[in-house]
């Protein structure tokens, strides 16, 4: 029941936001729905820890450890972003009569994000990922400036191009499954169980097509170009969702299919994943060095982290899987925090250019210290959660004997770290050069930033037992056990 409600509540909220009588309460409705969904995802979490899976509607709406993990981080990030949106949108939107449409659209967006980990049928997963892409388009172009519309268009073309390719991949997966299943319905669990019997050629082709199709939505290089454009133009609460979880969800589907491939005997695909992951990390690390816009900077860091997760999953050992799933969680909580902070800085200073920000700590101690904190966390400094998961990925690689890959990965992580810090140092310290008076922050914004900081601060020092068991379960399911 909880799982069905998780899917239905955002839809209901979207519908209510659309009805004229409720439009004034759109923000409250969105927040309410988002936080109830978060509470329900904790119920699913508990159920998954007890039984290994959670059933809403047998055959259609089911999830397991990996799905529950994604559900929780999606609902947490959308809930925090919904608080932030209140003050941010009121301040930045020039046409207040369009505000209800923003909330309507974000609810549809969170609906699509929640559908993907909640459905059991792989083909419906494809539909969910398509809906995510679609509902994000109008949000990216929401400000309707020339550049925002351009970013939305580039995002639309690049990510929609992947849709038919991945659809072809899902058809092939169905074909491979259907020819050995004897008519049993296709669910992720059934596919994984049947994997050893399926035609390895078909599996390979279907994975390839799904990887190419969803790779552009995840933001792997060289099809990552939409990411910095969209993130510099979209409203900041949307960026938090886009970067924190919108990229993670297609990656979750890719990893699901990867786990099917690894369950079949011809599993020699891991080293390819490592290579492709490292290419993304490398391109992102070097672009980070020369970026000029701090929202673009965090966007490139997302490309970097997606590459790291792919590399970790490709290292093909149990420990690598654990690193991959915890990196997914840590990236989601940290990156959404980063974009909420970026939105705060934007509200205070009204500029996105790194070059025109200096001495932020003196201008606005709150925004400045939050920026320092989130940059340390996202770059992977101890004692933040990203450091822990990157460390576990690297040590898993060393234990697996993949020295070259680990050496390259570690070097690139250091390059990215230095790059982020070169920019953030400039922004945070020194004498202020900003002529403009800093503007006061809306209450909802600092509440959301403080809320988003909690998991970032806590998870690096102490991983609560339920979180750890869910991560272990998700890693096992990812490894095909």
């Amino acid at each position: 029941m909880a799982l069905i409600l998780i899917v239905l509540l955002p839809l209901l909220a979207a519908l209510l936001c659309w009805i004229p009588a409720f439009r004034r309460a759109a923000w409250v409705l969105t927040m309410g729905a988002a936080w109830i969904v978060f509470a329900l995802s904790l119920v699913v979490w508990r159920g998954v820890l007890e039984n290994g899976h959670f059933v809403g509607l047998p055959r259609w709406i089911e999830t397991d450890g990996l799905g529950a993990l994604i559900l929780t981080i999606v609902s947490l990030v959308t809930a925090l972003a919904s608080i932030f949106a209140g003050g941010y949108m009121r301040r930045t939107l020039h046409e207040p009569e369009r505000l209800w449409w923003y909330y309507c659209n974000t609810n549809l967006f969170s609906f699509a994000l929640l559908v993907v980990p909640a459905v059991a049928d792989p083909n419906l997963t494809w539909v969910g990922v398509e809906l995510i892409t679609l509902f994000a388009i109008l949000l990216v172009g929401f400000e309707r400036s020339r550049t925002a519309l351009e970013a939305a268009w580039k995002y639309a073309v690049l990510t929609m191009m992947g849709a038919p390719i991945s659809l072809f991949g899902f058809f092939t997966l169905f074909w491979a499954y259907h020819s050995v299943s004897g008519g049993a319905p296709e669910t992720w669990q059934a596919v994984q169980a049947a994997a050893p019997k399926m035609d390895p050629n078909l599996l390979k082709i279907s994975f390839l097509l799904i990887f190419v199709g969803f790779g552009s939505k995840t933001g792997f290089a060289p099809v990552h170009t939409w990411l910095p454009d969209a993130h510099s133009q979209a409203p900041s609460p949307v960026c938090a969702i886009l970067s924190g979880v919108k990229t993670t969800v297609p990656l979750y589907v890719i990893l699901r299919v990867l786990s099917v491939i690894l369950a079949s005997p011809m599993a020699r695909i891991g080293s390819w994943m490592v290579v492709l992951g490292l290419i993304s990390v490398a391109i992102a690390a070097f672009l980070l060095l020369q970026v000029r816009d701090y929202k673009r900077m965090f966007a490139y860091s997302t490309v970097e982290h997606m590459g790291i997760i792919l590399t970790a999953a490709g290292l093909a050992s149990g420990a690598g899987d654990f690193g991959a799933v915890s990196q997914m969680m840590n990236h989601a909580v940290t990156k959404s925090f980063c974009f909420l902070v970026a939105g705060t800085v934007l509200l205070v200073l009204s500029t996105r250019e790194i070059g025109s920000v200096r001495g932020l700590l003196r201008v606005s101690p709150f925004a400045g210290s939050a920026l320092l904190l989130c940059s340390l966390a996202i770059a992977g400094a101890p004692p933040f959660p990203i450091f822990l998961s990157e460390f576990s990925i690297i040590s898993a690689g060393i234990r697996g004997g993949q020295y070259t890959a680990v050496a390259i990965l570690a070097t690139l992580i250091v390059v990215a770290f230095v790059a982020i810090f070169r920019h953030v140092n400039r922004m945070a310290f020194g004498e202020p050069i900003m002529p403009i008076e800093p503007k006061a922050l809306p209450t909802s914004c600092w509440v959301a930033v403080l809320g988003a900081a909690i998991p970032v601060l806590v998870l690096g020092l102490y991983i609560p037992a339920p979180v750890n068991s869910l991560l272990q379960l998700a890693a096992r399911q990812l490894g095909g056990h």
Partner: protein
Amino acid sequence: MTSATAEALNTLCAGLILIAAFAMVATRQVQGVVRFFIVQSLLLTASCFLIAYGRSSPHLWALGVLTVAAKVVAIPWVLRKLLPGEYYERREISQVVNIPASLLVALLLTIAAEFVSGPLVSTVTDPVIRVNLPIGLAGVLIGAWALIARREAIPQLIGILAMENGAFFAGIAIASELPLIAELGVAGGVILIVIVVGLLTRHIGERIGTTEAARLNELKEESMSWR
């Protein structure tokens, strides 16, 4: 009609679908591209009905009806409603490469599709799959090429839909037992694509005064001098 005749007619449809894909690459006028897309969708439906007849699958009959409703009726209607008529009158004088070269690329993509699907269909005895899989893959690739080579917004959108047609053409052969709810989701998704991208095109047209996507080029990474 025997099932052998149905198979022969299906092969004819496959050939015509490929020709329609080439025609979409070769047409300059926006309206013409939309018309060829409708023709291709009709051919896709015909193939769907033929396979439904050959395999006597009620499921595919339903899918055929769904395809007509979504791609032949709903999508052109939504496009007409959303976008002013003047957008359809436009002609693309310059594409990224000229049209003969573009057709040559499409031809190469078709050959590539044949090669890629070779190992997959070599063990299959079903003649329908042997026809639909390579042609469907060719449809996806040519659609992707049209998307890259085109500069106007509507032909780019049609490129995405043509790719979808290609994937579906293979899908009706290899995944004909897909649950109907998934098919409904896919068809609904396609209509949503048209609504959302159509809306975006309209905003772009109103705000920037052109629907030439190639002119959207303000956002790029500038290189920064080292300080």
